[in-house]
């Protein structure tokens, strides 16, 4: 009888806010295109990482309209920015948009995938949980960035109870994604 150990690597090359392996969000809701809720509002969406991995790219599932600039980031549970893309034009509709970031190795734990937009015209594939405070109860946190779309080096977390917008955000561990 032979024995083959599983690879000590992520089971999937993508970590996302909507896959059952990583998402804290557990309600089976429809994902559809929706406008970003508030300009310069950062959203921090928790994901659970089960094994050590290297995050090489960050991504977002764009909706039917692309507009303005966005930023994507990865944060520790304590609010430290581990990597981010910087202000980038939203590009592509109804498709994934991937941004190169400085590679970061992360250990198993709870992290936040973060996004901010500089307007409310651009759209994102998102779940809309119209009964507040469902999104806040899932652990999604926020931050008013003032007039900047750039995600901060250290997050100042807040909880927006009225938030109904749950975005589809991703991180890629594969070199060729």
């Amino acid at each position, binding site marked *: 009888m032979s024995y083959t150990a599983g690879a000590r690597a992520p089971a999937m090359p993508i970590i996302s806010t909507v896959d*059952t392996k990583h*998402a*804290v*969000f*557990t*309600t*089976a*809701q429809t994902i559809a295109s929706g406008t970003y809720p508030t300009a310069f509002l950062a959203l921090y969406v*928790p994901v*659970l*990482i*089960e094994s050590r991995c290297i995050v090489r790219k960050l991504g977002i599932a764009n909706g039917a309209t692309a507009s303005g600039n966005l930023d994507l980031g990865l944060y*520790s*549970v*304590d609010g*430290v920015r*581990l*990597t981010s893309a910087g202000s980038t034009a939203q590009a592509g509709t109804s498709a994934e948009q991937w941004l190169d970031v*400085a*590679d*970061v*190795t*992360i*250990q*198993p*734990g*709870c*992290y936040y995938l973060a996004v901010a937009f500089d307007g409310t015209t651009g759209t994102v594939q998102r779940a809309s*949980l*119209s*009964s*507040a*405070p*469902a999104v*806040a*109860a*899932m*652990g999604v*946190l926020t931050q008013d960035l003032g007039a900047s779309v750039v995600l901060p080096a250290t997050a100042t*977390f*807040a*909880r927006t*109870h*009225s938030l109904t917008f749950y975005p589809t955000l991703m991180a890629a561990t594969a070199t060729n994604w």
Partner: protein
Amino acid sequence: MFSSATSRRVPTMISAVTSWGQMPWREYYDYGAPTASAFAGANYVRFDPIFVPAPATIRRAWWANGPTTTGGASVSVALYASTSDGVPGVKIVECAATTQGTASQVQFVDIADTWIGPGSYWIALAVSSVTNTTFLRTGSSSAAIDAVASQMQQTGITVGALPSPATPDIAGGHVNYFCGFATTASP
């Protein structure tokens, strides 16, 4: 860059409706969207199972208020150990009985920081009244889900002084209230 210092393999909001919940959320798509409704009963506690895969420290109890809270119900959330039979047993921690506050907000109540190891637990939500008091919840009318949901209940309890050990019965009707514990002190 390498990061490891502050990571904890636990969600910030532990509940039956987040990733450690044992409810069949992901397997069935006939769950309704979260909605608000009156609680299941007065002086009543409902137990939802969770499985904790990694050590965690819980710091606050929480529940999600619906749009009507004028009834001023008294509410508490508790954590129970699971017995060898797999039902709620000894109470580990319970927040103080607290008047239901702002509508449509997550309401937090501090508890003594409590370390819990890996294993099975039950989250209990207790409410004193069903008049003009609503909570966010979801659920299903599916008999199949009801059969596997493993929810339990106990009546005639005192909010803020829940029994230990519990003597629960099987709960009918599959409803998950949004409640649980936070591993963070804020926000």
